[in-house]
């Protein structure tokens, strides 16, 4: 766990270590799509050394997703499997990855879940959630919110917020007081105007994408 950021709910976007998953057909070793290949290899070796007896003889697929591996890297993985007495079955990969730019955006499930955080999110804290995020409390400068869906702050939003982090351009950011350092919705970024606003309290406001730009307006209900 990184010491400099407190992750309140488990982040769904990135697993940063190799994971074994068990299926009927055998084991699947999941290597994260991003991050240094070398690191995961070393990690895998250590894991296997510690649990050699446990996995011995097991059928193993290696899931690499969109990661692009060179032949040497593939050979290295196969060698690790062989050395540990595992019965290597093959790679599972997202074929689109080989043709680079064919990447299609991830489908957005309209029935995404929502979590509620009942506390002030302070500088250096980061809340990441694969769904909608509701904060009951303030979000202070230096704090960061990331959600796949909408972000709603029942308090002041003075940190950074990223809604629709997986590409949902309809995501919104709503706060009782919207005074963020920076707002991101899907791939669009905007920052607060440099000069001081004439008044601090505008009442509830909503930020959303309109014509490719983030606009902020009074929240009407």
């Amino acid at each position, binding site marked *: 766990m990184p010491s*400099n950021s*407190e992750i309140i709910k488990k982040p769904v976007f990135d697993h940063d270590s190799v994971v074994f998953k068990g299926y009927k057909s055998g084991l699947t070793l999941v290597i994260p799509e991003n991050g240094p290949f070398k690191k995961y290899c070393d990690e895998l070796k250590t894991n296997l050394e510690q649990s050699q007896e446990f996995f011995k003889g097991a059928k193993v697929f290696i899931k690499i997703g969109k990661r692009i591996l060179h032949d040497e890297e593939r050979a290295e993985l196969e060698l690790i499997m062989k050395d540990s007495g595992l019965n290597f079955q093959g790679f599972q990969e997202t074929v689109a990855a080989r043709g680079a730019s064919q990447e299609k955006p991830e489908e957005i499930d309209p029935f995404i879940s929502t979590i509620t955080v009942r*506390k*002030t*999110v*302070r*500088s*250096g*804290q980061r809340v990441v959630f694969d769904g909608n995020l509701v904060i009951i409390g*303030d979000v*202070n*400068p*230096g704090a960061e919110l990331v959600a796949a869906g909408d972000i709603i702050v029942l308090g002041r939003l*003075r940190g950074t917020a990223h809604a629709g982090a997986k590409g949902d351009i309809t995501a919104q950011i709503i706060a009782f007081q919207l005074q963020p350092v920076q707002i991101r919705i899907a791939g669009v970024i905007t920052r607060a105007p440099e000069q001081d606003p004439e008044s601090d309290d505008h009442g509830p406001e909503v930020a959303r994408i309109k014509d490719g730009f983030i606009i902020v307006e009074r929240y009407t209900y």
Partner: protein
Amino acid sequence: MAGKVIVITSGKGGVGKTTTCANLGTGLAIRGKKTVLIDADVGLRNLDVVMGLENRIVFDLVNVVEKTCKLRQALIKDKRFENLFLLPAAQTKEKDAVKPEQMVELCAELRKDFDYVLIDCPAGIEQGFKNAVAGADQAIIVTTPDVSAVRDADRIIGLLQSREIQNPRLVINRVRPEMVRKGDMMDVNDVNDILAISLIGVVPDDESIIISTNKGDPAVMDSGSKAGEAFRNIVARLEGEEVPFMSLDYDLGIFDKIKRIIKM
């Protein structure tokens, strides 16, 4: 007897942690509380200097945790107060010479014999901070009324929460009423607005602090010092007394007063 272990921390450097620690410790001792100050800033020790006890150091915190000396041997008795002690940091070692578990053990040992254990935390959020907060059950956050110090204090409060130290209390140090009045400095409300934790003291910026720090005589002993008075109030609040916050509008000239009324 189970004493309180309070860490004095800030995140940002130079906001007055050590000064606060020395003054609160001395203030508690004046009230007859048996108090020990631990300087957790291994490698950059200062508390001994501010307390005027530098020349008495033989053993230090690292010697104690490494068990090369007895705890009793490393505690330096204050030159003014019978019931005030200092456990100095090592100057020639680094932060990783001490581990959090060792601090927990040390604090548990000290709280048996003392009413208060005050830990002077180093700046930053790395090893030194982790050591300093490990054994503490309460925290006092020191900040100055400027944006960066408040930001760092906010970070610290978050980190303390994740370490189960709830309800830290805030000291706002070096407030300059003159600047606050002109709107050039954040006032107590502005700071409170962001940090939203209970306030235990507001200390005015005071030249006498610099003099007392250099002399090694904490300002809390000087009855003429405004900052000293603020620290005495904090000590009283630590002891559970209700003390009103002192007015910082002490230098208002008649002209300013009129201007103020017109403004209102």
